[in-house]
């Protein structure tokens, strides 16, 4: 796949890949091949695609519990990502991380993180090192609207602003933290959190990949030039459940009208209309074949050997005592 992610075709390819990846992943949850379920990214593809299209290969990202889109947009191999979700030895994390911890350090993907708001400070540390080494890489921290009430994230914003670190704080405001609305959770505004630290903060349409790309470019340029961090609030909508667990649990917190109107603006459709029919069909076919082989690769891959359950617990190779017997 040619990497020109910031063109219209490139943006479409990314949003389409993420969409089809998530749809196939949900099928694999239903079939029992993915245990534990996933947090589908469906509907929010424009954010990952737009932001990552503004990045270079040597830039870094950290992600969240809803992280497949970010990881794929930063270039992770869909087959190895799916192998991770299905807990296979060939997965990005050798089956040790799963959906919420996918990482590929060679691609600057410093890990998805399952603790809401936890990744901002980690991102700041990585950005500081880049600066110290004289590089101009930037580091992106993706997080949801739920994270803006986490103290550690606000502390991280303070550090990043204080030390003028090349960090992009990207808030995906999908309106909900699980079932809790932003109106019920956020006093003041999300951009106001950035403004409090003197961090330039904008709110953009997070359903349009081009718009997100434009905002990300501006922030990335500023960060590379030594201008410090930015906060981008992307207004978006989660098309699917908070977590696939919800498909069966049937909790009600969004009425059908809201979901219907929320899904009306679809990032894949919005970006798709910018391509000719021929271009779009070519990309769609390409993605179908990518996903077919990704699913086949994942399901044909070996499960990790239970004897190695605690491999990698210590980077030094130190072995922990087993849980029973001498």
């Amino acid at each position, binding site marked *: 796949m040619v990497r020109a992610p910031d063109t219209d075709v490139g943006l479409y390819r990314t949003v389409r890949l993420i969409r089809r990846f998530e749809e196939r992943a949900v099928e694999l949850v239903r079939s029992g091949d993915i245990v534990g379920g996933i947090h589908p990214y469906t509907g929010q593809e424009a954010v990952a695609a737009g932001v990552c299209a503004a990045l270079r290969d040597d830039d*870094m990202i950290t992600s969240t519990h809803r992280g497949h889109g970010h990881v794929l947009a930063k270039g992770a191999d869909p087959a190895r990502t799916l192998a991770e979700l299905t807990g296979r030895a060939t*997965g*990005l*994390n*050798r*089956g*040790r*991380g799963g959906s919420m*911890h996918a*990482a*590929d*350090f060679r691609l600057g993907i*410093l*890990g998805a*993180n399952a*603790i809401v708001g*936890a990744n*901002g*400070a*980690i*991102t*700041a*540390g*990585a*950005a*500081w*090192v*880049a600066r*110290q080494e004289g590089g101009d890489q930037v*580091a992106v921290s993706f997080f949801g609207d739920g994270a803006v009430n986490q*103290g*550690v994230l606000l*502390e*991280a914003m*303070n*550090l990043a602003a*204080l030390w003028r670190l090349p960090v992009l704080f990207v808030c995906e405001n999908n309106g909900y933290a699980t079932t809790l609305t932003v109106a019920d959770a956020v006093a003041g505004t999300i951009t106001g959190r950035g403004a409090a630290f003197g961090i330039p903060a904008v709110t953009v349409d997070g359903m349009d990949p081009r718009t997100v790309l434009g905002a990300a470019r501006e922030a990335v340029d500023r960060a590379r030039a030594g201008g410090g961090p930015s906060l981008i609030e992307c207004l978006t909508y989660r098309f699917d459940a908070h977590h696939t667990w919800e498909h069966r649990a049937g909790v009600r917190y969004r009425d059908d009208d809201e979901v219907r109107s929320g899904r009306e603006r679809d990032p894949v459709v919005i970006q798709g209309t910018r391509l000719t029919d021929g271009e779009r069909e070519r990309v769609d076919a390409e993605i179908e074949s990518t996903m077919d082989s990704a699913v086949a690769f994942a399901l044909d891959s070996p499960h990790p050997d239970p004897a190695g359950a*605690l*491999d*990698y*617990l*210590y*980077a*030094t190779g*130190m072995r*922990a005592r087993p849980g029973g017997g*001498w």
Partner: protein
Amino acid sequence: MPWLSYQKALNRALADELARDPAVFVLGEDVRVAVSNVTAGLFKRFGPDRVLDAPLSEQAFTSFATGAALTGRRPVVEFQIPSLLYLVFEQIANQAHKFSLMTGGQARVPVTYLVPGSGSRTGWAGQHSDHPYALFAHAGVKTVVPATPEDAYGLLTTAIRDDDPVVVFAPAAALGVRVDIDYDELGPVPLGVGRVHREGGDVTVVAIGHLVHDALAVAEELSGDVSVEVFDPRTAYPFDWDGLAASVARTGRLVVFDDSNRMCGIAAEVIATAAERLDLLAPPARVTRPDGAVVPFALGLDHAVQPDRGRLTTAIQKVLKY
């Protein structure tokens, strides 16, 4: 030979590692002017890129260190109060510690967390006097509690060079300990290797941190009647089980002297393992803080919850009755 204090040993280890490895940096509160004394002179010598004063944002600067470690640095994070480790338990136990396994070995997080002044500081009351090394040992984070200046130097050095997160507890009650030592003899001390400070044939006292010195004093006091072996594990986790087994093989009796709370403390684990693995001539005993101790302010109350020499003496005598 020159005198080396425990505090100076920590300072020297930091300075030597900063000089040896450009990846090392120190981060914490008031570390430039060295309020804890442990970072004295480092800012002047190594400058602002290696010695960073952080705002009072323990959670953020602890995970900042994780991010720096993931991208090649070896941060040393200093904490002013042992109980600040509760604030950052998530950042250490749930983030830094888990990256290696969760990423399938892609990541390493070589951060050292240094607490210069852990345990009771006499008169600092409930929120400044904890000694939570057992908590980190329980979580599987490498945890060291050096007793002597030379081990403080050696273990801090090793912690910094180790590719995993390591918590270094420097007991407040040990900071003033001094040894007469040739500086050339200072060097790294491996994790998980204990040290017999005094050989004996009747009973093994496992003592941790500053309690090593109290154990040695008691051993000396009792030396007319009992031959006490003092075994200092030096690292709470990984624990030197082979060293313990060798000592108990010589003595057949065991007392553990541990500044943790009794419930799930290090002493509890040592005794459980001894019961599973070792041949004991008598039921073992432990001297610890009480269950769920909150250190009270008034001096007499503070002392009443500390494991002390009197209680150790009683425990030794009881174990020897069998």
